[in-house]
């Protein structure tokens, strides 16, 4: 199973680093919801971390972001729940950071990389899937702002100019 463009989001109930349980209904007040599959140890996540935080802050009044980490913490201890809590604190994540310990949610979404972005509109239909932009290496040389463009157009009630890109990052570390 996976979430495909034009299809509805899948429900989940996952624990956040603040100890609270979160589900998509917690973000019902926002017209757009971004679900990003995330982790601590991947350098691509680190490369995109500040850009993701900046976008989440910029769109905070109209877009909810939620990050989900499913990586096997036995082989990748940096991705343990305790280290997730530490990273979220250290970087002051402006979004919930959730632990998919069973990996079921990540499998159900069909996510395979970190970071991998899924953008849902008001009816919680998938409208963009893929990477944040076209340059992981150098933020100043970005030419295509895929995620930002998707958010702006969706908030204007329009179709994102590009709806799908190839996610770039580390593979999800399955158990």
């Amino acid at each position, binding site marked *: 199973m996976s979430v495909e463009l034009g299809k509805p989001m899948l429900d989940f109930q996952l624990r956040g680093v603040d100890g609270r349980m979160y589900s998509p209904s917690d973000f019902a007040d926002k017209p757009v919801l971004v679900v990003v599959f995330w982790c601590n*140890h*991947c*350098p*691509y996540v*680190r*490369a995109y*971390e500040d850009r993701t935080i900046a976008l989440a802050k910029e769109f905070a009044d109209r877009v909810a972001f939620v990050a989900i980490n499913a990586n096997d913490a036995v*082989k*990748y201890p940096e991705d343990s729940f305790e280290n997730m809590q530490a990273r979220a604190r250290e970087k002051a994540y402006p979004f919930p950071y959730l632990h998919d310990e069973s990996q079921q949610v990540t499998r159900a979404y069909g996510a395979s990389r970190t970071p991998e972005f899924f953008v849902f509109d008001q009816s919680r239909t998938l409208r963009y899937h893929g990477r944040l932009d076209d340059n*992981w*290496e150098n933020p100043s040389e970005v030419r295509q702002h895929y995620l930002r463009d998707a958010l702006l157009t969706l908030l204007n009630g329009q179709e994102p100019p590009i709806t799908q890109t190839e996610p*770039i*990052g*580390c*593979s999800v*570390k399955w158990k």
Partner: protein
Amino acid sequence: MKVQLIYYPDCPSHERAMELVRQALQAEGVQAEVETVRIETEAEAQRYRFIGSPTIRFNGVEVDPLPHLPYRLTCRTFRHEDGRLSPVPSLTMLRTTIQRVLEEKRKDVSGTG
């Protein structure tokens, strides 16, 4: 100079890493073939002391060695001079390692090392 680029194919950074290695060698005036080693199993990761992709060695000297990390199949994080975290080393990190290796070699030849 023996140059090794050891990579895990699931991690997309190795092609960019290869470009950077070639740029660094050229900038330091070193002519060398780059041997690529593909790591696909945990046993291979152990054998090559591979903490993540890409692992780059010049005459066995590793760029940004992080000996506290376990050997495993994943991407590797490099901290650049400006503090940025990246899936590939900076050109400066590569050039500095090459310079160190050349300096060691010079010392060995001159007997001052």
